[in-house]
């Protein structure tokens, strides 16, 4: 289980972040993030709890995305992440490359990353509307997002579904 000991709300909550097993008393919980530096996004754990994902140093809606093994504490990370959601296995979907917040519509890139494998994240969509409009379907087999009109998409905007690995 993830928990904090200190929280502040500056429009969005920030806290320290600790990880502990819940089978009994644990005198040495694992500290994942420093005080008031962490935030959680849509999903913190993949379904079998083997990986945990969170954000640190969030500024203007984006921060570093560490994904850690709950068993070994091995960490991989991606910068500039807005929202992260968990799919199946070690698959996470996240938005990055956020546009300036004062330009409408706010856009981001959408990426898929199997953090259980050695490879880097792969871009799923170059431009989606709003970094927060990223929803993984129940079962983790697909992701829903909104895409703006663009010539390469026959100028059709709308809600799109992409299969996840």
């Amino acid at each position, binding site marked *: *289980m993830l*928990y904090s*000991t200190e*929280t502040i709300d500056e429009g969005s*909550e920030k806290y320290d972040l600790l990880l502990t097993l*819940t089978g*009994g*008393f644990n005198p040495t919980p694992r500290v994942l993030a420093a005080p008031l530096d962490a935030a959680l996004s849509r999903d913190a754990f993949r379904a079998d709890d083997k990986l945990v994902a969170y954000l640190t140093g969030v500024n203007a809606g984006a921060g570093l995305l560490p994904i850690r093994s709950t068993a070994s504490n091995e960490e991989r990370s991606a910068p500039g992440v807005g929202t992260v959601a968990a799919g199946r296995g070690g698959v996470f979907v996240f938005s990055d490359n956020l546009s300036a917040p004062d330009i409408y519509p706010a856009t981001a890139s959408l990426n898929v990353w199997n953090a259980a494998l050695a490879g880097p994240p792969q871009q799923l969509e170059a431009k989606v509307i709003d970094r927060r409009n990223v929803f993984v379907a129940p079962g983790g087999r697909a992701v829903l997002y909104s895409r703006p009109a663009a010539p390469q998409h026959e100028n059709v905007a709308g809600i799109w579904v992409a299969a996840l690995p």
Partner: protein
Amino acid sequence: MGEIDTGVVSGKLLPDASALLYMVSDQLRRTALPEAVAVPVVTNEFRRVQR
């Protein structure tokens, strides 16, 4: 079933209903079910961060 504990703020049942995790003040406690035998998991400064 009887009373599990007093001063409980919130709780979460494990998916298999074998145990309950719950908050009392700034502690996280756990009890197996259906017997109510509470043990502390986090003894102080516990704040829930997950929805």
